[in-house]
């Protein structure tokens, strides 16, 4: 019996049944089909607990939402303190929480002048696109094939057709996509001087974190400048110190016109996202500041948590921890490749953003994810490149947990080998 006070479930099985019946039949069944029967119950730090009580180390972090771990005590205390005084607030009026967070964000984002808030990443991307269109008076948006920017009206149109076709949400006339790391294709897309913006994840997450080639991002930036398009950096998964710098674009030495942050900035506690705009992109905030409205965008409770997140990220201890986790993962994965090179074929890494390649099978990472799951580690494959396992250590991971992760990884590889061998036979 799982009695949560407000509702109760006889068993995990009952939860699965109700989930299929009322929530999402396909999603529920999919995970069971790949051997991941996870229902996250308790959670603490970088640990998740399944309803069965089994512990998993979280290397998925829901895309960096749990960058600081689950329910970080300092953030929980921050939110609880805020709840005694604030609520979501009223989006029509100036607010202390929104003013303070905008100032803090602009301060850590060179070149940016304003922060416009959203309840999450997709809406922040919509704000970014709208702002670029306002500033350039152009409609066209260029993105990367297999790029991913969310599922709302404009953001989904930039993404993979898996997410647009089904809802008739593709807009091929306004949204163009080009291959990643292909400068010539980018030039081709921009040279008509009719593009409002290029939107780029600094390292495309859902595509399995392929690393931008040397000079690629800078070339994209320069092409935007030359052809009058704005450069939108989607920092949802690469921001917040995960690259080793506050924002991924800083790690690559480029200057966007607009940037988007979400997920981790919520502390995993109160949803919030933001589009940061330079002076030009923020022009509409002078002309008609109510042209974009969001009742839950910039909810004050979320602002207070996000403000704390930004403060914590700048502590020397956090900066140092990112570096040590980065080094540990680089060394550890090099060692694991030496031991398991037959299945584990490559590593992509920038800071604590890693993609682990299991390229001997087109869905190699799905099997490895399952083997790791059986060994107490939760890391998800990339939906748009299933050979690659997303490996997302949190910025506060301790030495002890990192060693625990690496020991479990090592132990899981024979099982991964076995699952891959079976998969080949079936195929």
């Amino acid at each position, binding site marked *: 019996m799982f009695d949560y006070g407000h509702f109760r479930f006889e068993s995990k099985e009952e939860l699965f049944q109700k989930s299929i019946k009322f929530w999402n039949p396909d999603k529920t069944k999919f995970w069971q089909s790949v051997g991941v029967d996870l229902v996250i119950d308790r959670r603490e730090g970088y640990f998740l607990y399944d309803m069965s009580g089994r512990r998993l180390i979280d290397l998925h972090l829901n895309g960096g939402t749990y960058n600081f771990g689950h329910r970080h005590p300092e953030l929980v*205390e921050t939110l609880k*303190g*805020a709840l005694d005084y604030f609520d979501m607030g009223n989006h029509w009026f100036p607010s202390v929480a929104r003013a303070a967070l905008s100032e803090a964000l602009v301060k850590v984002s060179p070149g940016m002048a304003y922060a416009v808030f959203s309840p999450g990443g997709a809406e922040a991307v919509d704000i970014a696109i709208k702002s670029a269109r306002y500033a350039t008076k152009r409609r066209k948006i260029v993105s990367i094939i297999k790029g991913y920017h969310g599922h709302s009206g404009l953001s989904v149109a930039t993404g993979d057709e898996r997410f647009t076709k089904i809802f008739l949400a593709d807009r091929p006339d306004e949204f163009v996509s080009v291959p990643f790391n292909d400068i010539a294709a980018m030039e081709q897309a921009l040279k008509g001087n009719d593009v409002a913006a290029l939107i780029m994840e600094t390292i495309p997450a859902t595509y399995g974190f392929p690393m931008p080639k040397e000079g690629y991002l800078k070339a994209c930036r320069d092409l935007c400048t030359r052809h009058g398009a704005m450069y939108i950096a989607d920092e949802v998964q690469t921001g917040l110190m995960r690259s080793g710098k506050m924002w991924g674009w800083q790690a690559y030495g480029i200057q966007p016109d607009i940037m988007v942050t979400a997920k981790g900035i919520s502390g995993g506690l109160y949803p919030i996202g933001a589009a940061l705009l330079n002076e030009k992109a923020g022009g509409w905030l002078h002309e008609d500041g109510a042209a974009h409205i969001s009742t839950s965008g910039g909810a004050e409770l979320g602002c207070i948590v996000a403000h704390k997140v930004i403060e*914590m990220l700048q502590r020397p201890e956090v900066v140092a921890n990112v570096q*040590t986790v980065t080094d540990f993962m680089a060394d550890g994965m090099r060692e694991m490749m*030496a031991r398991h090179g037959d299945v584990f074929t490559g590593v992509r890494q920038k800071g604590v953003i890693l993609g682990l390649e299991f390229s001997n099978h087109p869905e190699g990472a799905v099997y490895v994810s399952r083997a790791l799951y059986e060994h107490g580690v939760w890391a998800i494959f990339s939906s748009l490149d299933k050979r690659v396992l997303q490996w997302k250590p949190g910025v506060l991971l301790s*030495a002890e947990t990192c060693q625990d992760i690496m020991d479990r990884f090592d132990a899981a590889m024979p099982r991964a080998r076995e699952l891959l*061998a079976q998969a080949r036979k079936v195929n």
Partner: protein
Amino acid sequence: MSDVLLKVPDARLERTKMMLDRAQWAASGMQKLDRTSVRRIIDAVAAAGHAKAQFYAEWAVRETGMGVVAHKRIKNEACSKGLVELYGGDDFISPRINAARKIVELPRPAGVIFALVPVTNPVATVFFKTLLALMTRNAIILSPHPQARACCADAVRVLAEAAAAAGAPDGCIQVIEEPTIPLIETVMADARVDLIVATGGPAVVKAAYRSGNPAIGVGPGNAPVLVDESADLKQAARRIVASKSFDNSILCTNESTVLAFASIADRLLDALKADGAHVCSPDETAKLRKVLFTDTGFNVGLIGKDASVIAEAAGFRAANAKILVTPVTLVQPEEKLVREKLAPVLAFARVQTIDQAISSARSMMRKSGRGHSAAVHSKSEANILAFASAVPALRVAVNAGCSLGASGFETNLGPSMTIGTGFAGGSSVGDNLTPQHLLNFTRIAYNKDAAEMFGKFEGLDPLHLPKREAPTLSLAVDNGGDAELRRELRRIILEELKAVLAA
């Protein structure tokens, strides 16, 4: 400013917790260092401390108002380069092979050491604990006494920079810049702390032991000094005055009370006077008793002050005195003057026999000083042995000043800023703290049956073991044509990869 409208987390406490994570990472990095790297780091740290010995001696006296600059400089030097000279040749890293016992001992560092630093010997203790921690490949977080925090925090920064420049892992030396009692208690109880080394007042030491983490705490001193008729009185007087005036008695090993055989007591007093002691009249003694001890204990405002300053505070003059000697008749805890005095005031009592010396010493140590220090000035082995075996002290300095003798500077105990007071003094350690105390050992123990041969471990080192063979790689094989060719190609690629990764 008005009241804060929101309840907010204690950011200082939260940051301190992050320091513990950083220290854990540093500890894991330290454990991978070999002897050469450790030597390079401790040399760099010792040199950085030594170069600023005078600077920090001045700063510590200015900030705490205690002690003597010249003496603090000596301690800072001894606790920087002095320690490396003493222990630098010792090996706390390589396996220790004992073929006769068929045992190999592998040093295992404690991990994260949390070190409390007292107000009395602030910077010397920072140097001392940091170097001991580094020698044994531990990470250390220092928490200075609030009244010495500026000089300590600065000194820690200097040591940490020197360590980093010499290749030490990030965060292996950190300092809590704004310590408070609740903060320290939280850190001491944190599971990320592997060992607490607590030097300070009894309250903080008890708190360390209550924390639930392994701790080495030390209790207060109160050293009796026996001078019998076999002693060289001039030498004894010279050493006692020098020791009692050293850093104005701020070392916890300083002499508390002289127990002089009655037959030589007057001559000893004359010799003490000749060396700069002011022997107080009964009236002056009463005044000192009144000014030195308040209802709550020793008058902290007079800790480590010059003798002349203390005399003035008591209401008499002793302009050039190095120490003040207060004759007493009762050697029992109710006579306040025979308690611990971190100030150049020395009680002086006469005893008729060695047995009375022993019972007097035991009496005065009943209130404080158990497990700590004592001194004897004598040529009589029988008296030395009788006294040492009967008084509750774990180190008895012979024909040496107690301040620097018991703390190991002028004896072969080895200099230490942390004096273990043992079981009698509420501590787990009865020695002067040495690097050895910050290590555990894994012991590889062979079957003692002679038929089972002991292995050859000479020349082997856990940090530089031969490369492990990777397991034979089981290749996932594609079906379809060219399978053999592909298999061969993969084998070649993997061999190349392994060669690159092993390089």
